[in-house]
C-alpha cells in the first residue's frame, strides 16, 4: 500500500513538474522554477485550498516522512552530480575575483539579514528562540546562493563555459561552502549547545575536507577504468558507497549530508572515463525523477495561506528587497571592484542572487530546528522563488544570449589553443588549408590569417603527397618543391602560427574530408587552377571535398592575392548564399576587412573575362556581378556551405588587389 502511494506521489510530482515546465520554458524560465512551483501547487497552498480531500488522499500526513527521506536521498545524489559537473580548472586564474565576490556575497546579505531580523523577531520567531539564533539564521538564509540552480540556469543557457558563468559558478561554490559552515555554526548555536560544539563542528569539517583531499582523492585516482574505457559496476558501486559514507560523515559532523556529496563529486578525477560514466549513469534519473521530489516535499510544507493580511505581504516584500539588495549589490560591487566591466559585474550580481533550491534546503533545516515559524518559512520560500524567477529575464536584459555566445566562443578558442584535444570542442574559428601548389600557397595563407586573426583559431596547413613518391625507384624525398615551405614563409611574414601537416595519400579527397572531420574545422580552404573550372563541375579531389566535407568549403581562384583588405560579396540565390554571407561577416569580424556588397545576380559581365571561367557554374546556381573595378586582378573565393553541398554560389571576393 505504501509503495503504491509513493509511486502515485512520484508520478503526480513528475507530471505536474513537466507540464508546468513546458509553460515555464515558454516564459524563458529555467525548469527548476516549474518544479518548485509544482511542489507548492500540489501542497496546501493550492491543492489544499481547492480540494483538501484530494490533498489528503494524495499526500496523507503519515506518508510525508517516506517522501521526505526519498527527497533527501535525491538531494544527496543531486549534490554529488553538481560536484561532478563542477570544473575546478575554471577556478584557476580567477581566484581573486571569485573569492572577493563570494565574500561580499556572504557578508553584505548576512549583515542586512541580521539587521532585518531585529524587527521581525517579535512577530515571526517561534516562542523561545533567542534573538541571536534567529538573527544568525536569517543572515545565513539571506546569504545563500543556489549553486545547483545557478548551474542549471547556466547549463540551460549554455553559459557554463563562459568567463562570467565560470566566475559566478566558482564564486557560488566558495559561497556555498562558506554558507554551509556558517549554517552549521548557526545550527549549533540554535540547538542551544553553545559556541564550543559549534567550533568543534567547524574543526571537524576542516579535518574532513583535508581527509577527502589527501586520502580519498588519490584513492579514487587509482580505481578509474583500466586498459579500455569500460567501467565495471563494482567500481560504480564502490563510488556510491564512498558517496554514502561521505554524506553520512558530514551529516554526523553537523554540516549536512549534501556538503559531503558535493565534495566527493568535486574531487573525482577528471582525466579518466570514470567521471564521464558516473555523470551519464546518474544524471537523468537524479534530475528528472529524484530532485522534483525534494521540491514537492518543500512545497507540501509551504502554506502561503498563512499570509492572509497586508502586513504579511509587505513583510514579504521587505524580505525580498533586503535579499536582493544584499546579494546583488554586494556581489556586483565586488565584481566591479576586482576589475570586471559593468555589464559582467551586473550579470554576476544577478546570477549570484539566484537562491532557488539551496534556500529551500536551508529553510527546511530552519523549519525542522524550529528557528523560524511556518509563516516566515512561506515568506522566505516566496523570496527564494522571486529571486530565482527574476534571474533569467534580468540576465537576458543585461547580457543578451547572443553576447554570451560570442564570449563562449572566445573562451573556448583560448582554451583549445591552450591545451587540449581532451576538452569538448566547440566550433572555433579554425581552418584547414589544403595546399598542393606552392604558387597558390601564399594566397591561402593570407585568407587563413584573415579568418583567424582576432581569435587566433587553429590553422592546419595540409599537404598530401602522392604515395607513388615513395616508390622503390625514388632516389630521395625531394623537399625542394614542398608547398609547405611556401606556406611557412608566408605565415612567418604575416605572423600567423600554423601547424603543418603532410602525409602520403592515395585518396587525397577522402583524406582531406577525414582530417576536416577529425579536426572539426568549420572551414576548409582549397586553391584551384583556373583550368579546373573549365568543366561543368569541380571534379576530382575537390569534388569529393565539396560533397563530403563536414565544413564550409572555400575554393580560391587565386590571381595574386595578398593581405586581405576588401571583400566584395555577391549574394546569390542558391543554397550556398548564406554560407557566403557568413564567411564574409567572419572575415570582417576577424580582421576588419571591408565587405562591399556587390550587385545581385545581374548577369552583368565580370571583368577580366572571369565570366568565362565561372559561367559554367551559372547553371548550378552560381552568380556573379561586377567585381570591384579597381586596378589589379580580382581573386575569387567560391563558397560552398556545409548545409547544402550541392550547387554552387559564389561571393566574389576581391581580395584587395595585391598592388
Amino acid at each position, binding site marked *: 500500500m505504501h509503495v503504491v502511494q509513493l509511486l502515485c506521489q512520484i508520478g503526480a510530482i513528475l507530471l505536474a513538474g513537466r507540464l508546468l515546465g513546458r509553460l515555464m520554458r515558454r516564459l524563458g524560465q529555467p525548469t527548476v522554477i516549474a518544479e518548485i512551483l509544482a511542489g507548492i501547487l500540489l501542497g496546501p497552498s493550492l491543492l489544499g485550498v481547492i480540494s483538501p480531500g484530494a490533498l489528503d488522499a494524495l499526500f496523507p500526513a503519515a506518508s510525508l516522512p517516506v517522501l521526505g527521506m526519498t527527497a533527501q536521498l535525491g538531494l544527496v545524489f543531486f549534490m554529488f552530480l553538481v560536484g561532478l559537473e563542477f570544473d575546478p580548472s575554471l577556478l584557476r586564474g580567477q581566484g581573486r575575483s571569485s573569492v572577493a565576490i563570494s565574500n561580499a556575497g556572504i557578508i553584505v546579505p548576512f549583515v542586512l539579514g541580521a539587521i532585518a531580523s531585529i524587527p521581525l523577531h517579535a512577530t515571526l520567531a517561534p516562542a523561545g528562540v533567542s534573538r541571536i539564533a534567529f538573527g544568525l539564521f536569517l543572515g545565513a538564509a539571506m546569504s545563500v546562493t543556489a549553486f545547483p540552480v545557478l548551474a542549471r540556469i547556466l547549463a540551460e543557457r549554455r553559459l557554463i563555459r563562459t568567463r562570467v558563468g565560470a566566475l559566478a559558478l566558482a564564486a557560488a561554490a566558495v559561497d556555498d561552502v562558506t554558507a554551509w559552515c556558517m549554517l552549521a555554526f548557526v545550527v549549533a548555536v540554535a540547538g542551544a549547545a553553545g559556541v564550543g560544539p559549534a567550533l568543534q563542528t567547524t574543526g571537524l569539517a576542516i579535518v574532513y575536507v583535508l581527509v577527502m583531499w589527501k586520502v580519498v582523492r588519490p584513492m579514487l585516482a*587509482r580505481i*578509474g577504468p*583500466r*586498459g*579500455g*574505457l569500460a567501467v565495471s559496476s563494482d567500481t560504480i558501486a564502490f563510488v556510491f558507497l564512498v558517496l554514502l559514507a561521505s554524506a553520512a560523515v558530514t551529516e554526523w559532523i553537523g554540516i549536512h549530508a549534501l556538503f559531503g556529496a558535493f565534495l566527493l563529486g568535486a574531487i573525482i578525477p577528471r*582525466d*579518466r*572515463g570514470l567521471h564521464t560514466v558516473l555523470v551519464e549513469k546518474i544524471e537523468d534519473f537524479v534530475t528528472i525523477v529524484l530532485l522534483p521530489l525534494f521540491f514537492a516535499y518543500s512545497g507540501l510544507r509551504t502554506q502561503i495561506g498563512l499570509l492572509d493580511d497586508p502586513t504579511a505581504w509587505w513583510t514579504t516584500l521587505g524580505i525580498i528587497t533586503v535579499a536582493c539588495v544584499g546579494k546583488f549589490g554586494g556581489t556586483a560591487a565586488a565584481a566591479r571592484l576586482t576589475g570586471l566591466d559593468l555589464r559582467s559585474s551586473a550579470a554576476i550580481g544577478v546570477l549570484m542572487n539566484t537562491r532557488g533550491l539551496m534556500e529551500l534546503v536551508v529553510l527546511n533545516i530552519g523549519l525542522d530546528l524550529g528557528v523560524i515559524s511556518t509563516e516566515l518559512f512561506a515568506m522566505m520560500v516566496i523570496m527564494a522563488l522571486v529571486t530565482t524567477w527574476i534571474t533569467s529575464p534580468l540576465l537576458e536584459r543585461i547580457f543578451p544570449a547572443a553576447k554570451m555566445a560570442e564570449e563562449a566562443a572566445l573562451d573556448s578558442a583560448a582554451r583549445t589553443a591552450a591545451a*587540449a*584535444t*581532451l576538452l569538448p570542442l566547440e566550433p572555433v574559428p579554425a581552418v584547414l588549408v589544403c595546399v598542393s601548389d606552392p604558387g597558390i600557397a601564399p594566397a591561402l595563407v593570407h585568407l587563413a590569417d584573415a579568418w583567424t586573426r582576432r581569435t587566433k583559431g587553429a590553422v*592546419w596547413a595540409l*599537404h598530401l*603527397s602522392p604515395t607513388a*613518391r*615513395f*616508390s*622503390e625507384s*625514388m632516389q*630521395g*624525398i625531394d623537399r625542394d618543391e614542398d608547398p*609547405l615551405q611556401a606556406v611557412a614563409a608566408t605565415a612567418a611574414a604575416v605572423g600567423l602560427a*600554423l*601547424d*603543418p*601537416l*603532410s*602525409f*602520403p595519400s*592515395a585518396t587525397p579527397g*577522402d*583524406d582531406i574530408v*577525414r*582530417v576536416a*572531420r*577529425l*579536426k*572539426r574545422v568549420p572551414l576548409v580552404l582549397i586553391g584551384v587552377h583556373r583550368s579546373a573550372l573549365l568543366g561543368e563541375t569541380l571534379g576530382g579531389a575537390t569534388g569529393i571535398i565539396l560533397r563530403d566535407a563536414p565544413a564550409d568549403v572555400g575554393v580560391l581562384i587565386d590571381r595574386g592575392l595578398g593581405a586581405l583588405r576588401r571583400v566584395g560579396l555577391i549574394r546569390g540565390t542558391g543554397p550556398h548564399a548564406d554560407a557566403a554571407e557568413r564567411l564574409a561577416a567572419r572575415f570582417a569580424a576577424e580582421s576588419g576587412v571591408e565587405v562591399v556588397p556587390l550587385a545581385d545576380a545581374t548577369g552583368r559581365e565580370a571583368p577580366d573575362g572571369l565570366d568565362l571561367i565561372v559561367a559554367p557554374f551559372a547553371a548550378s546556381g552560381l552568380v556573379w556581378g561586377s567585381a570591384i573595378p579597381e586596378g589589379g586582378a580580382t581573386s575569387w573565393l567560391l563558397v560552398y556551405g556545409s548545409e547544402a553541398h550541392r550547387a554552387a554560389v559564389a561571393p566574389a571576393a576581391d581580395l584587395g588587389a595585391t598592388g
Partner: protein
Amino acid sequence: MHVGASLRLLRTEAGLSLKTLGQAIGVSAAYLSRVENGHDPAPTADRLCAIARVFGLPSELLLDLTGRAAVPGAPSLASRTLLQEVARRRLGPAQIGRVLDFIAREFPEGPAAPGIAGLLTPDRVMLGVRVGRLEDAVDLAAMRLVPDGGSEALAQALHAREYVFPSAVGAGLLLPHAAGFAPSPTACLVLLDPPCDAATPDDAPIRAVLAVIGLGEGAPALSWLARAARLADPELIAQFTAARSVSEVMGSLAGAG
C-alpha cells in the same frame, strides 16, 4: 633504450599500482618508480621474469626489452642469460643434452607467433609524415585505422590514454593504443620526418608513432604491447626513418620479429 618507460606502459595497462606490483615481486614501490623513471638500472633477469609472471607474459618478452633484440640476428638477453646459466654451472655435454631435450619437448617448433608486422598493411604505414604537434600524428593514425567514420572517437580515446599515461617508450617511439575499436589487434605506423619534439623518457624526439587498437584486455593485450615496445631500438627506428618505401619498412619490421 628505456626499459623503465616500457615497464610503466605495461604496468599501467595491467592496471597495477607501483605498490601492488612491488608487493607481488618483493621490491619496494619506490624502487620500481626509480626504475620506471630511469633513475635505477633495469631490473635483473630474475626480477623481470617475476614481473612477467605477474603480467601473465612469457618472460622472454620482458627480457628482450633490456636487450632490445629487435635488430635481426642479435642474441636476446634472454638467450644470453641461458648461456650464462649453463656456463656458471659448468654443465657438461650430457647435462646440456638434457636441457636441449627439455627445450625440444617443452617448446616444439611451430609456426612463429605473428609479429607486429602482421598487424600492419602497406596502406597503414605512413612514410614521410610531417606534423606540427604530436596529437596530429596520433589523429592521422586514427584516421588510417578507422577510415570510415568513428575515427574521431578513436582519436579521442587515444588522446585520453596519452593524457593519463604518455606512451613514449624511448628511442623516439610512441605507442598510443586502445582496447577496442577493432575486432582484432590492428596497427598503424606513422613515421615522422622531421621528428616531433615531445616529452619522452630519454628526451629523444618522436620519430615513429605505432598506434595499436583492438588489443582487448589482459595478457594478450600486454603481450602485444610488450612486442611493440621492443621496437624502441634506436637502430631499428633509424632504419624506419631512412626507408624510402613502405616495403622497406615492412622488411625491417619482419626482421625485427
